[in-house]
């Protein structure tokens, strides 16, 4: 706990309006959206209003050796914002201004607290979009999603957050403020700093401004679903679509457990006997091209014995999307704890991974449904359990260990889009090896030698 004198100095530094010290307020910053993790109250919450204030806070924290936990909206799924070593939560909820929308350069400049959906609303009148669309677009911030390198449903065709950040302003652990990148498409001046900070989970520096890349909004789209009686057929359809040289904007899959749960939850007439359901959306700037792509997809679905449904109107499209939108809510309604993983495999191993997840669920006698982004191999095996049942929670932890092990065996990765944070730190060595862990520590220590920025996250402590 910070002593009274330090708290008073900090309050004087940032102003009473920008600091929360009461127990109730601090409690509300002790968690984020991640299930099954320890909670910890920070000593204090500071809500900076500009980057100079961030600099002043970092210098103050460095002088007094206080940990800093940067936080956007706290919607991440890896414990990335839990202030596990107390100290200061640096919440960017007040730095939420869109500073510039530049249709000529296809860029926008935003403060880190801008919500992704708010940016999209601001650029829509120009016929533009900011494509990364994690499930939390309506709440997650630009700073948080850059720090976590968020993905989303359009990753296959449009990429993820790292493909859309062109420049930044960052406050470093030593208190320096550095700006790099900008509105130019090409920029090879020095290191590619943006890539260093994107996905750094707040462990290397504090993002105080972002220049985002925008693209013209696709003008046409076609949406369809295919229901398959075997996982192999569904997997072959995914491969077939790519082989037909179509890159859909959305290529989502749901397993039988998810289909049945959604149907029980929402009663929308899903084929509950199917083993897998694919949701496919193609889009583009030309009606002819989109139509040709849709026809190619339809052919592939039929060739793989899929039961096809196509949307002719926006209302019908909405109906097809209802199943996917309800996947998480429906599964979550089954119990009080939702363990949502994001193990990711090469696209060609999707079927193997779905089968493996189902078997792991059975082996540990757990309620497990899998849905996710088939097009980019990013699956969400989701385990529903009772946090008051110790035995079940222990089995869940074993199942999660095994899911990650299998994903790595298939040539995949621990995390496609949620990040490492606290939740997956113990698995890092399995993917990167000791030399990889040392590389992480080397980078961390060169930028933040005192481990003041988001300590306890991503970077495993040295063995002692």
């Amino acid at each position: 706990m910070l002593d009274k004198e330090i708290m008073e100095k900090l309050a004087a530094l940032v102003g009473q309006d920008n600091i929360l010290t009461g127990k109730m307020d601090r409690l509300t910053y002790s968690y984020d959206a991640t299930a099954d993790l320890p909670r910890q109250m920070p000593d204090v919450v500071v809500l900076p209003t500009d980057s100079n204030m961030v600099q002043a806070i970092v210098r103050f924290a460095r002088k007094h050796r206080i940990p800093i936990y940067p936080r956007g909206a706290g919607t991440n799924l890896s414990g990335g914002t839990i202030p596990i070593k107390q100290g200061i939560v640096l919440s960017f909820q007040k730095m939420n201004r869109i500073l510039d929308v530049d249709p000529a350069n296809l860029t926008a400049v935003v403060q880190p607290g801008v919500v992704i959906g708010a940016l999209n609303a601001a650029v829509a009148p120009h016929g533009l979009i900011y494509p990364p669309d994690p499930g939390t677009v309506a709440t997650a911030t630009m700073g948080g999603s850059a720090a976590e390198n968020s993905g989303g449903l359009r990753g296959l065709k449009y990429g993820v957050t790292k493909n859309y950040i062109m420049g930044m302003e960052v406050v470093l652990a030593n208190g320096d403020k550095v700006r790099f990148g900008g509105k130019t498409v090409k920029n090879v001046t020095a290191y590619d700093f943006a890539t260093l900070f994107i996905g750094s989970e707040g462990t290397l520096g504090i993002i105080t401004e972002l220049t985002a890349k925008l693209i013209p909004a696709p003008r046409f789209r076609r949406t369809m679903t295919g229901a398959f009686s075997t996982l192999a057929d569904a997997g072959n359809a995914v491969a077939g679509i790519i082989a037909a040289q179509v890159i859909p904007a959305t290529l989502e899959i749901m397993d039988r457990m998810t289909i049945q749960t959604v149907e029980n939850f929402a009663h929308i007439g899903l084929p509950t006997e199917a083993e897998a359901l694919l949701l496919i959306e193609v889009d583009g700037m030309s009606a002819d091209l989109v139509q040709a792509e849709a026809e190619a997809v339809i052919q592939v679905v039929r060739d793989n014995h899929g039961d096809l449904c196509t949307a002719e109107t926006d209302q019908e499209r909405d109906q097809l999307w209802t199943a996917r939108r309800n996947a998480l809510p429906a599964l979550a309604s089954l119990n009080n704890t939702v363990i949502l993983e994001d193990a990711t495999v090469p696209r060609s191993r999707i079927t193997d991974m779905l089968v493996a997840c189902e078997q792991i669920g059975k082996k540990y006698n757990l309620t497990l449904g899998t849905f996710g982004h088939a097009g980019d191999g990013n699956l969400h095996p989701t385990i529903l359990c009772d946090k008051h049942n110790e035995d079940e929670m222990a089995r869940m932890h074993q199942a999660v260990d095994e899911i990650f092990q299998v994903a790595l065996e298939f040539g995949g990765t621990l995390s496609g889009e949620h990040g490492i944070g606290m939740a997956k730190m113990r698995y890092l060595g399995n993917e990167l090896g000791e030399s990889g862990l040392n590389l992480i520590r080397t980078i961390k220590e060169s930028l933040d030698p005192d481990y003041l920025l988001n300590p306890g996250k991503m970077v495993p402590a040295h063995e002692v």
Partner: protein
Amino acid sequence: MTETTTATRPSKTYHDELAIIRAELDKCMKCGNCMAVCPVYGVERKEAAVTRSKVAVAQAVLDGDLELDDPEVYEMAFNCLVCKSCMINCPTKVNFDHIMLALRAALVRKNGLPWLKKMIFSTLRHPKLFDAGMRLGATMQSLVFRSEKESRAISPRSPFSLVGGTIGFDAERKLPGLNSTPLREQVPEVVRVTDPVASVAFFTGDSLNYFYPEAGRDLIEVLTANNIEVHIPKGQNCCGVPVLVHGDIDTVRTLARNNIDVFEATGCDYLITGCGSCGGAWQHDYSELLANDPIYGPKAEKWAKQTYDISTFLTRIVRLRAPQGRIDKVVTYHDSCHLKKSMGVAAEPREILHLIPGVTFREMSAPDACCGSGGSYVLTHFQTASTIGRKKAEDIDRTGAETVSVGCPACMMQLLDNVHRFGAHQEVTHFISLLAESYRREKN
């Protein structure tokens, strides 16, 4: 709510014991989807303002990590409009309204009601006293407020505008005038028609009775124009929502039982409301509050199924006669929180507006975003409420509409103030008044 026998009724509800709400708290994943829609969070931008954090605080109170009478907890518990917007956006369907009511009731059990609330709420339990007070208010208001004929609104006079400035009672404040003759005194207890197609009982609520009796008369007129007999029992009292949201459970249960008795006596099959909060009370709150009552519990459940907003009744139960009188106006519609999010009424008022010849309907952006009223929230949290209201007024302005229609009198009061303070002084009216006007113009 399913039919339950006397034997299976719980001895207490969540209104009586905070721990009963724990299962509801467990449903919250802390995903934060509530942040996208919570009007208070939208203004205050700190965690304690938003739903998931209020859930976490309630959990902490039950776990002993926070004290119920911590002043911060008290302030947080009442910094909520109970607009239920978060519940629409909640993936796990947390009944947050139950949590909020359970928490407030627990606070009142522990600390008692503040004296001012106690005084006001106790008069509600004595309808004659309350009625006398409201009439006295109607004659006294000219001392405190100056009236404006064209908008039928009143504003605080100096010096009241000076001392009341901090809670929004500045000279800019627009309020509906208290009517010296309440609605229920203006109309007979039964308005008969020849060969009625249906017989309904109209629950007026206090707002239509005292502040907007003309809208109440319009509602009755529309029903009779459709050949429906209307009972307006004089013994009815406040629906109780204003005291329920302040945690005064004893009073709301008393009000609920009395209202049930009064409406049982009408012998009508349908109960009609013109206010989302009143209708929501009959559809949901009464059966929740009286779940442990072997006599009134089943009656409340019966009436829950027989309660309809006027727009639902006209479009789903009877087919209203298409109005012929022309009203050449550009009209928009504000979805009142309790009407849409508690009663599930959104399409019906729009259908009615579309039926009126001459009405050009323009949808506003985010029509179901809260107006900031929250009953008394606007009085206790004026700054936040007025920032919410400014956004609503701007959305209304952008439609170019000259009339804002709405289905809930509490929103009418707030919108009246919003459009005068921040907007283009649009006319604010209950949608039923536009329909009544169209029927009246048929005769001209």
